[in-house]
């Protein structure tokens, strides 16, 4: 087994906020009455704020620092989204537990078994390049480590060692000189080790295991065994869900659409990763904007052809958002999809040109429908009904049609027949054609249709109502 660990040191911050800001921003957690910094952004680090610093001290150093409350639930949600994304690279994905103790909050990680995937991706270099190219689109701070055990790979990732360490023996050799702090142990154990003079991992491993267990507890002993591969490390493997439901909760209200695009971009890239992992595409998904104290706003995104391109998804969502006023500030996002279909682009390699055309057409129609509304873009079909207003219908573009036969009909039909005030009888060119029907539903009508010619040169389709209403009406143009 060869494990790739993706360590996410900034997850407490990045699970709450996906874009960079220039203002100092920290994630904090409470312990008793004291509030501690868990994670800072680069602007906060620049003004010398550090993790594990008391928030009161931080306020003294930088009065205008912005504070977010740590949310392990948001971190778990982010890890699960990331796991679904990572499934495209490996069928064995393991989610690290999100540590509840805020002092270990920066050690969240995710593992992929890559021994079986390397060949598929054409070697180690290609695999890492493909993974990083995708990972960078998600805008997480990450470190990669590749080792023979889960904890070993995580340690290599935290230490910033990117060399592949294939065997437990090589691992022991490589980590010997690393400081104890890299192990991300519980703070009291790390403190106890420090006071007893154990400063490097090598020293700790050389100590008799029985003595370590006696002094520092069974947990540490087990941890070391699992790390160096002396004990098995069974963990539940992440299973790809059948329906996709991802959420992203903000710790603050987002008012501008522009600011929503950052988290949306990440979510859609993760979604695209999930689709690749399942080797499928999607024709329809829903994005729900959660509001405080108001029902969420759902945005249905439909595509004419199944797709899994995050940039296309984003373009469509963006087009919709630009023409759409959210009723209230947004405090969270949800993405749901439960119907998947094979993307058309992968279905056939034959007839490449024809396919590109139909994709191009589908993209154009989607774009227009996204801006103008789906019901504004439609095809036409005939209906076997003699009443003119019932003999046509809007229809989806690719629809199998039956072709009822009608007498000659004008090209333009008016939405509503328009009453005519006739002072002189116009020149009748053809008619009458009697149309009766509709007694079976509400639209009962009896009409005599004529084609009349006006002095302006126009040919009109008019009828005389034979029913109760009576009178002459304009119903179409022979354009």
């Amino acid at each position: 087994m060869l494990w790739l660990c993706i360590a996410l040191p900034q997850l407490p911050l990045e699970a709450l906020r996906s874009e960079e800001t220039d203002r100092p921003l920290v994630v904090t957690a409470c312990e008793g009455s004291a509030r501690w910094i868990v994670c800072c952004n680069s602007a906060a680090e620049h003004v010398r704020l550090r993790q594990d610093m008391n928030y009161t001290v931080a306020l003294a150093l930088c009065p205008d620092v912005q504070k977010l409350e740590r949310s392990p639930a948001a971190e778990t949600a982010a890890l699960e989204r990331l796991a679904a994304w990572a499934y495209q690279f490996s069928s064995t994905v393991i989610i690290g537990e999100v540590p509840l103790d805020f002092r270990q909050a920066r050690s969240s990680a995710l593992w992929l078994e890559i021994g079986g995937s390397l060949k598929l991706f054409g070697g180690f270099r290609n695999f890492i390049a493909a993974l990083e190219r995708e990972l960078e689109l998600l805008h997480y701070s990450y470190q990669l480590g590749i080792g023979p055990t889960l904890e070993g790979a995580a340690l290599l990732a935290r230490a910033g060692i990117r060399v592949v360490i294939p065997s437990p023996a090589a691992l022991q050799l490589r980590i010997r000189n690393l400081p104890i702090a890299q192990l991300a142990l519980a703070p009291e154990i790390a403190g106890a080790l420090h006071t007893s003079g154990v400063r490097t991992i090598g020293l700790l491993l050389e100590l008799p295991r029985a003595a370590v267990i006696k002094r520092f507890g069974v947990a540490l002993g087990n941890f070391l065994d699992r790390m160096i591969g002396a004990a098995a490390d069974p963990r539940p493997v992440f299973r790809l869900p059948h329906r996709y439901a991802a959420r992203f909760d903000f710790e603050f209200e987002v008012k501008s659409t522009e600011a929503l695009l950052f988290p949306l971009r990440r979510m859609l890239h993760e979604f695209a990763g999930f689709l690749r992992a399942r080797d499928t595409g999607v024709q329809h998904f829903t994005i729900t904007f959660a509001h405080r104290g108001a029902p969420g706003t759902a945005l249905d995104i439909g595509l004419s052809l199944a797709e899994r391109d995050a940039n296309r998804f984003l373009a469509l969502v963006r087009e919709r958002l630009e023409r759409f006023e959210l009723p209230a500030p947004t405090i969270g996002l949800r993405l749901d999809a439960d119907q998947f279909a094979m993307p058309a682009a992968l279905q056939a390699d034959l007839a490449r040109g024809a396919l590109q055309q139909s994709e191009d057409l589908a993209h154009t129609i989607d774009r227009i429908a996204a801006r103008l509304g789906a019901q504004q873009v439609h095809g036409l079909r005939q209906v076997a009904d003699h009443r003119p207003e019932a003999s046509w219908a809007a229809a989806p573009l690719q629809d199998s049609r039956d072709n009822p036969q009608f007498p000659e009909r004008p090209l333009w039909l008016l939405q509503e027949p328009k009453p005519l005030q006739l002072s002189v009888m116009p020149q009748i060119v053809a008619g009458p054609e009697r149309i009766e029907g509709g007694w079976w539903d509400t639209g009962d009508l009896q009409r005599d249709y004529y084609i009349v010619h006006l002095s302006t040169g126009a040919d009109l389709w008019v009828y005389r109502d034979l029913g109760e209403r009576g009178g002459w009406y304009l119903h179409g143009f022979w354009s």
Partner: protein
Amino acid sequence: MNRAETLQHLAWLCRNGRAVTAPVVEASGWTELDAVLPGGGWQAGTVVELMPAATGIGELRLLLPALARITGAGRHVTLIAPPYIPFAPALSQHGVRLERLLVIQAQHADDILWAAEQSLRCRSFGAVLAWPATIRDREVRRLQLAAEAGGSTGFLYRSVDAAHEASPAALRLKLRRADSNGLQIDVLKCRGGRSGQSVKVAAPCSGCA
């Protein structure tokens, strides 16, 4: 070298030695009209302005032979912001394949132009018909560029008042009813051909045979 060869050689020099593929032309289906149009029909990659004197004189029927052939050949046609309901039975009677006809409803002037531009750029559309509420020079030029990029023909229906204004469209036709049943077409502008001509096409209203 005779005169014709000299001219060809000059043209070749002007193109910098590059071969120019002949523009794709879709015959309009009316022999009299094809005779005056450059290339013998509607040129792909151009914008055509049509200015009918009134509704109902046959201004849409003029395009139907071409639309029937375009949809029959597997390309799509879109109608953007049509003034009335495009009546499916009539379109079908004229040979238009309804499964390749798209109708786009739009109210705002900028939406209409935007949709027209998007459709013109898409290579799947053979013809884009639009009824813009208002349109300025600059916007016609944009559509012209989009048509060149997508290789489709844009047909803009404008009011007859626009005949007095200048426009960058490649072809501008004023339509009125001929005295005897038919459509009189005045060629106001014709890139690559002669303007100022007037032809009559026999387009009898189909119901009054």
